[in-house]
């Protein structure tokens, strides 16, 4: 399959890669069908996501969705972050083929798992 230049840029230059020391919460989600994995760590201040970092294993869309997710949620309150959907991640990348949408779904699952741990 061919990927857009924006997608390739995310892949070559991952944003917010790593794991936060002193994270308030860490969520580690896995897609059991394909083995892709996304691990999200967050630091919150006053109910707002101050910093987000991720680690990922899997196909390129999974790696890219991790970057995009951390960009989308940084600075958001917990309730604002809960409003972010799979389609927001896909739109932020500039689109994904439908057979790769599971990568964005995994990103949202990791986000929701992290937010659920806060409550």
């Amino acid at each position, binding site marked *: 399959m061919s990927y857009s230049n924006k997608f390739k840029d995310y*892949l070559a*230059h991952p944003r917010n890669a790593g*794991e936060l020391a002193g994270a308030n919460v860490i969520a580690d989600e896995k897609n059991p069908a*394909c*083995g892709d*994995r996304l*691990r999200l760590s967050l630091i919150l201040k006053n109910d707002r996501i101050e910093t987000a970092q991720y*680690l*990922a*294993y899997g196909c390129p869309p999974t790696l890219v969705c991790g970057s995009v997710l951390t960009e989308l949620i940084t600075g958001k309150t917990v309730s604002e972050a809960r409003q972010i959907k799979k389609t927001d991640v896909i739109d932020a990348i500039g689109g994904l083929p439908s057979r790769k949408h599971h990568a964005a779904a995994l990103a949202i699952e990791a986000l929701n798992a992290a937010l659920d741990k806060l409550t």
Partner: protein
Amino acid sequence: MTTNRRIYLDHSATTPVDPRVAAVMSGVLTENYGNPSSVHGFGQQARAAVDRARREVATLIGAKPNEIVFTSGGTEANNLAIRGVCEAAVDYGRHIITSAIEHPSVRGVCDALEKRGWEVTRLPVYENGIVRIADVNAALRPDTVLVSLMWANNEIGTIQPVREVGRLIRERRQAGQRNLWFHTDAVQAAGRLPLNVDEVGCDLLSMSAHKLYALKGIGALYVRRGVRLAVQNVGGHQERERRAGTENVPAIVAFGEAAKLARAEMSQRVAHDSVLRDRFESRVKQLIGDVVMNGDRERRLSHLSNISFRFIEGEGLLINLDLEGVAVSTGSACSSGTLEPSPVIRALGVDDEIARGSIRFSFGKDNTEADVDYVVEVLSRAVERLRALSPMTLAGH
């Protein structure tokens, strides 16, 4: 991150057309346009060109020219061989023996025949990626009509025991099993190993021109004299009634020229490729940890290296290399949330992580040592970058 440098390390997928081959073909395209079936001079000129090419292709594998059937490529050759033999031998048996690491075109035909009532035994390979002759012997039955075993594998390059299989089949035939045939898919081996159909004792052998510096869309099936084949393409007398359709004259001529060059230059190409591959593997081992070299270290093609990089997935690495101008391939594919790891790497008995992280690097006659050094440099950086992103490198994960 883009680069102007472009390095092609995917010669097992296809090769660039050799300029000498293109030059010969170009002359045919513009000047020798007759239909080889036509009786007039234009037609006979085209017929002569096809015949010359047929001799070159036959000579590459030690066959007679009238045992060569030109096809549209390796896939059609494999289809014609397997379907053709099985359908012609249906009164004698419906059992096929093949391996777990065949090319998709062989796997596909066997799967299709299985749905139509044939029984298929898929022999395992072991951690070295090679079929054991004892397994072939044990799988043979009185109703076996075909053994289809590739000469060399397309993903890991391992060379299969085709000579031993050929000997075994001949012994069985001499013992009375007259409708037992041996097909080998030599698409990766042709032009890269000395092939001789009589020494090996195969009855059918598939080749593809674009793996040996000619163009796509042309291949050949060797059919030993006496092998009964149910014709798949009907409606013309071409190829001695074995494959109907006007011959693709320019492509056939290109194939003939490429076969001639492959034969003349084989030893220097093999030496060149193996120097590059060994330099590459040695530097990878020096610079990158946690790698697994897939397939037997000795019994393999000289131009190919298949390596799994732990903690990362192949496609991400492939695209990172592509951004640096380096073309390689991976056998794994992920779609619709379901992973399809390379069946070949899985057949080696490795875990999912190794199968997902495998990359094939295949060298060619135009690659240089400077190419190798550049590739190792960008590969090392890309692996480091992706591993920094991988949760599997965390302690305890």
